[in-house]
């Protein structure tokens, strides 16, 4: 415990400095920040003795001296983004560099009346009353150190508010860029998405490192989907090869709301995706899917918790991993069914494909059921490329390398088939193909229509 406290000191001292320098004691959010930093000091960084963190050791994060966010927007060109991400011409884009809103890289398309899409930092001042209704009210910072840390240090991020009966057709792309600096930096991006009754929106969060350096992205996204709202959410992790990324996604669903979230982990050295959904109204439905494609010593931990609080809700979890070299993936897919959440329909699947003998996957589907009339299933597989299938393809003339790559790609592709943003899905297909030794030669092909 002493060691943990020592490690939290840097952040606590940083918080105190900010308090004095900013003179923000009058701000409506300051009491929440103070509460959060106190919680963080109490909680300390989690250790692997903590059941929720058994497979992910955050000691490297705890031991690093991080500087707080610094300027660096000048060093990021539009090409840095377009080279590393999908073609987002059809999207509104809000970009952030090292935690701060960057106007030069942002462009918002025409939006329906009443829709708010912009920087959270500004909205906290100009739309304080609206933001205060939601911000930090769902992602619980009293139990999770990283959420507490983010809440204490919230500086900027995105605020999206969709009024009733409003359909935002163009996806909103949030790009969080981190540059290399002299000292590893920590940023705490915050995203707040509120979809009012019967509204619909698609939001893509991209986390992007433009260098090779070490830094920490500690992100929190809160989604409030009110009655009958539809939110389609994507998170693309392309952090630098030495970056740490801890991200929490929390979705609160009211009656008949439908939220889908896709976590695509393609970069970073140590990544944890906490994905929490609360199905808090009858008829709510969530689909959580994810794909990680890892190499070297990358570590990705997808930690899901679906809380069926009300009856007649459906939840689906589909996570896949393709693991090469000494990479490691962890999947925990907990479904909690509350006592009165009858007629719950929950399903979780996790499939891992190991491409090397040293790659490792830990898979823990979990069900906690307190109601009696429910349908819940779970399944996990960890395997290697099927030799029989390789032989079949080779017996028709494909070389071994192509046959293997074709099978790996077919496996991975099932992990992105639910993506509804066409240019994003296409880009991901190309990204996966480019990762495979013979992938390029498989490129000009038609794939089976998946349903």
């Amino acid at each position: 415990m002493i060691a943990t406290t020592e490690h939290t000191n840097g952040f606590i001292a940083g918080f105190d400095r900010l308090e004095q320098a900013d003179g923000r004691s009058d701000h409506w959010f300051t009491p929440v920040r103070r509460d959060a930093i106190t919680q963080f000091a109490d909680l300390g960084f989690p250790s692997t003795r903590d059941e929720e963190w058994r497979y992910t050791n955050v000691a490297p994060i705890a031991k690093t001296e991080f500087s707080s966010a610094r300027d660096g927007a000048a060093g990021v060109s539009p090409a840095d983004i377009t080279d590393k991400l999908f073609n987002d011409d059809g999207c509104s884009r809000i970009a952030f560099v090292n935690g701060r809103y960057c106007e030069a890289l942002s462009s918002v398309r025409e939006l329906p009346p009443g829709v708010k899409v912009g920087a959270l930092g500004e909205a906290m001042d100009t739309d304080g009353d609206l933001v205060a209704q939601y911000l930090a009210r769902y992602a619980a910072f009293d139990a999770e150190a990283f959420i507490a840390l983010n809440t204490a240090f919230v500086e900027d991020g995105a605020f999206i508010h969709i009024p009733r009966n409003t359909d935002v057709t163009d996806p909103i792309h949030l790009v969080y860029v981190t540059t290399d600096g002299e000292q590893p930096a920590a940023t705490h991006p915050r995203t707040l998405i509120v979809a009012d009754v019967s509204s619909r929106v698609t939001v893509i969060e991209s986390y992007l490192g433009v260098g090779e350096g070490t830094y920490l992205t500690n992100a929190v996204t809160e989604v409030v989907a009110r009655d009958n709202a539809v939110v389609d959410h994507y998170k693309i992790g392309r952090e630098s090869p030495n970056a740490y990324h801890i991200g929490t996604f929390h979705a609160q669903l009211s009656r008949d709301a439908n939220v889908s979230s896709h976590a695509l982990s393609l970069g970073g050295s140590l990544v944890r995706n906490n994905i929490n959904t609360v199905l808090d109204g009858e008829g709510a439905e969530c689909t959580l899917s994810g794909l990680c494609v890892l190499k070297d010593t990358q570590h990705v931990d997808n930690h899901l918790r679906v809380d069926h609080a009300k009856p007649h809700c459906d939840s689906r979890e589909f996570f896949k991993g393709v693991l090469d070299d000494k990479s490691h993936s962890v999947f925990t897919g907990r479904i909690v069914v509350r006592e009165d959440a009858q007629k719950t329909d929950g399903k979780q699947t996790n499939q891992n494909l190991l491409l090397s003998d040293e790659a490792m996957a830990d898979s823990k589907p979990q069900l906690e059921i307190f109601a009696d009339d429910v349908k819940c299933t779970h399944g996990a597989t960890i395997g290697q490329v099927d030799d029989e299938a390789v032989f079949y393809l080779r017996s028709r003339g494909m070389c071994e390398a192509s046959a293997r790559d074709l099978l790996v790609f077919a496996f991975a592709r099932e992990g992105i088939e639910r993506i509804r943003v066409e240019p994003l899905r296409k880009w991901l297909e190309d990204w996966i193909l480019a990762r495979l030794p013979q992938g390029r030669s498989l490129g000009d092909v038609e794939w089976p229509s998946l349903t």
Partner: protein
Amino acid sequence: MLEVRNLHASVEGNEILKGINLTVNAGEVHSIMGPNGSGKSTLAQVLAGRDTFNVTAGEVIYKGKDMLDLSPDERACEGVFLAFQYPVEIPGVNISHFLKAALNAQRKYRGENELDALDFLDLVKAKANLVELDAQLLKRAINEGFSGGEKKRNEIFQMAMLEPSLAILDETDSGLDIDALKIVAGGVNALRGPDRAMIVVTHYQRLLEYIVPDHVHVLVDGRIVKSGGKELALELEDKGYAWTDQTGKKHPVSA
């Protein structure tokens, strides 16, 4: 075309092929019959290059080359084709896409131009018609959710697409109704020609009414114990495999 000499193969230390000798000339159709477990599929798979089986002795000469030196894909490119007894399901891999990749790999190997998308499509249509394969199936993943008959027809369709010089059919007739059997046989007969040869592994004499073989071999316990003309198949059907038993041991016959 194919010369198999004293071929021995084992899996996990168990010898399954115990000295196979077989000569197949261009233009010929050979049928291999035998009880379950006698090694028919093992022979077919060893010829196609499956490395689960260890070849412990003997040689296989194909078109004058030592075939055992070639990888499965090199053999395919040299014109060897295996229609699997149990075709594997491959989720996510589209049949026509994979066939295009395979066909072009073969063409490249032989120094021919790759087929463009249009030519490929024409070829697919013609060959799918030949085996009366529903074109919708070709948009699906390989064998995924196919019926037994659809899987077998898909094998023959692929054979028709790849036009091999040595086709090995492993129980392609098993489990087919008479209509499907006729279609499969039609696909095989369409491919027969003076430059091609076929090895048709079957459990039942019925197929040989539609694909008339030049030679019939009886494989029992890893050895070819009897060879003859097409009339041998009828005799086998009458008397059972025990009849061929040279050693006096009883071999189980399962129909």
